[in-house]
C-alpha cells in the first residue's frame, strides 16, 4: 500500500529524526571515558570543574541525567526554600513579571508617542536624531545609571527592559502611522471624521500590523535582555538562576534553564504571532 504523507507529517517526522540524532550525538559525546577529562586540559582547571580524572565520567550531563532533571524540576516548579533555592516556575515568573512590566510601560509610552511622531513631519524630523543616538545603546549600559537613580535592583531591571522595548515599538508605530494610505485618510476627511475617531478607527487599524511587528521585536529583545540583566543584579529571576547554577557548577541545571528560556521565549513570540494574524488585513 502506498501512503502519501502530507507536508505537515513529513516535517514532523523529520523533526523527530533530528531530535533523535541530537540525542544520539549528545549521548556519544558524554559517554564515560576514563582519563580523557584531564587530557589536554590544565589540571587545575579540571580539578575546579569537578574532580579531574577521578570520577572518570564526563561532567557534562548525559541525556538521561538531563531527562531526570527535567522531570524533577518540572514536577515541582513552585517550591521555595529560601533565596538560593526556588522552583523554576517561581524564577520564570519573576522574570516574566519584569519583562511584561517593562514592556507594557514601554508600550504605553511608545505607541502614543509614535502616533504623535508619525502624524507630524516636523516632530518626526525633530525627534529622529535622538532616537538614532539612543537606539543603538545596549540596554545593559543603562544599568549603572538605573541602579544609581532608582536604587532598587528589581525596578532597575524593569527600567532596562523598558528602555530596550521602547525603540522598536516607537519606530514602528511612527512608521506605520506616517505611512497610512492616503486614500483612507481622504475618505475620513470627506466623511468629516473627528480626530479621535480617525485615530482609533482608521489610523490604528491601518498601522496595527506594523505596530504589532514592532511589539514583537521589542518582546524578543526584552526576553534576551532580562537574562543578562538578572545575571547582573542578582536576587531572583531566570537570569540569576543561570548564574547561581553556574556558581554551583551544576551544568545540568544551567542546561535546563537554557531550555526553559528558549521555551518561554518561543511562547511569548507565538502570542504575538497570533495577535499579528488578528490585525493583519489583505489589501
Amino acid at each position, binding site marked *: 500500500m502506498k501512503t502519501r504523507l502530507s507536508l505537515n507529517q513529513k516535517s514532523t517526522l523529520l523533526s523527530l529524526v533530528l531530535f533523535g540524532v541530537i540525542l544520539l550525538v549528545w549521548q556519544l559525546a558524554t559517554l564515560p571515558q576514563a582519563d580523557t577529562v584531564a587530557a589536554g586540559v590544565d589540571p587545575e582547571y579540571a580539578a575546579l570543574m569537578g574532580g579531574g580524572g577521578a570520577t572518570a565520567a564526563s561532567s557534562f550531563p548525559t541525556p538521561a541525567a538531563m531527562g531526570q532533571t527535567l522531570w524533577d524540576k518540572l514536577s515541582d516548579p513552585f517550591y521555595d526554600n529560601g533565596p538560593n533555592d526556588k522552583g523554576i516556575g517561581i524564577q520564570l515568573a519573576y522574570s516574566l513579571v519584569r519583562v511584561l512590566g517593562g514592556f507594557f510601560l514601554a508600550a504605553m509610552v511608545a505607541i502614543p508617542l509614535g502616533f504623535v511622531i508619525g502624524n507630524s513631519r516636523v516632530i518626526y524630523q525633530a525627534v529622529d536624531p535622538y532616537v538614532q543616538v539612543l537606539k543603538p545603546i545596549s540596554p545593559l549600559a543603562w544599568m549603572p545609571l538605573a541602579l544609581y537613580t532608582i536604587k532598587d535592583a528589581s525596578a532597575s531591571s524593569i527600567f532596562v527592559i523598558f528602555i530596550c522595548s521602547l525603540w522598536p515599538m516607537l519606530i514602528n508605530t511612527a512608521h506605520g502611522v506616517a505611512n497610512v*494610505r492616503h*486614500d*483612507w485618510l*481622504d*475618505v*475620513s*476627511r*470627506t*466623511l*468629516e*471624521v473627528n480626530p479621535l*475617531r480617525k485615530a482609533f*478607527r*482608521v489610523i490604528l*487599524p*491601518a498601522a*496595527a500590523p506594523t505596530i504589532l511587528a514592532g511589539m514583537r521585536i521589542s518582546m524578543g529583545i526584552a526576553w534576551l535582555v532580562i537574562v543578562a540583566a538578572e545575571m547582573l543584579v542578582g536576587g531572583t529571576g531566570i537570569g540569576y538562576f543561570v548564574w547561581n547554577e553556574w556558581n554551583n557548577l551544576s551544568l545540568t541545571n544551567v542546561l535546563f534553564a537554557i531550555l526553559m528560556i528558549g521555551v518561554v521565549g518561543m511562547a511569548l513570540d507565538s502570542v504575538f504571532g497570533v495577535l499579528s494574524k488578528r*490585525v493583519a*488585513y*489583505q*489589501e
Partner: protein
Amino acid sequence: MTSPLSHPFLQVENLARIYPSPTGGDDVTVFDHVNFRIHKGEFVAVTGHSGCGKSTILNILAGLDAASTGNVFMDGREVAGPSLDRGVIFQSHALMPWLTVLENVSFAVKSRWPRWNKQKVCDHAMRYIELVGLKGAEHKKPSQLSGGMKQRVGIARAFSIEPKMLLMDEPFGALDALTRGVIQEELLKICAETQQTVFMITHDVDEAILLSDKIMLMSNGPHARIAEIVNNTLPRPRERSAIHKQPHYYPIRNHLVDFLVSRSKQFGALRDAPDATSSPTVFDPADLLESFESTQPELNVVPAPPVGKPHIHLVNA
C-alpha cells in the same frame, strides 16, 4: 426641479492651479480660467487628456485640495474643506480592508449621523448595499470581492451619506467593459431615483453620453481650461443597448471624439492671451446634428451601430 434661473447649485469661478517651476524658471500653470456651474440634479461629465488637471479640479471641489486662485461655491457657501455634503467615489475605491462591506458603509453612515443607534445605522447601510446589488456579500472583506464589487461598495458608501453632490474620479476606469456596463446602468437608475447632482471624470466617451446631462471638454495643459460644453439632451430614461439609436447620439459622439483627437490641442492659442474670453463654447445636439449631416451629405440616416460597438477609450499618454 432644476431652476437654472436662480443661482446655480455649484459655481466655480476662475479656478487655477499653478506649480512653482522645479528648475526655477517660469511657474507651471496646469489650468486657469476654469469657470463652470452645475445645477441641482444635474449630471456633469468631464473629459480631457491625461494631465490636464481633471483630478485636481475634482479634489478642489471635494475640499481635499486647494486652488491657487479662484473660488468654489456650493449652495451659496464657499467650499473651504472636505464636507459630508460632497460624497467622493475614489478611483481606487479606497475601502478599508480591515472592515467588512457592511462595516465600510456603516462607518460612513455613522459619520453622517453620529447619534443614530447601531440598528438604525445598520439598516440604513444595508439599504444602500442592496441598492448596488451586494446583498449577501455584506459580511465579506474587500479582499474577497471582485474589482466591480469593490467599486459598488464605494458607490454604496458615497450614496449612503446622502450627499448634496457626488464627485467621481474615473470610477469605472479599472473595470472590464462588461462589468462597467452593468454598474453604469445601476448608477443611472440610482441617480434617477435620488435626483443626485454629480460631477464625474471619465475617459470613456460612451460613458459620458450615457450618463450625463452636460459634458465638459478640457483642452490640453498647460493652461488647460474648459473649452467646450456639450448639452446632452438625449431623452431619459436611457438604456445602454438602445441609446445609439437616438438621432443625436452619433453627432454628439463624433463631436466629442473630434475634440479629443484634434481640437483639444488647438486651444494653446489661449495661453498667449490670458485675458481672452474664459467662457467655453456651448454646443447643443441640434447644432451638432446639422453639422453632422452637412459633413455627411450622402448619408442622411444615422449609421447602423457596428456589431459589438467598440468603446472609444483614450489611452493615457
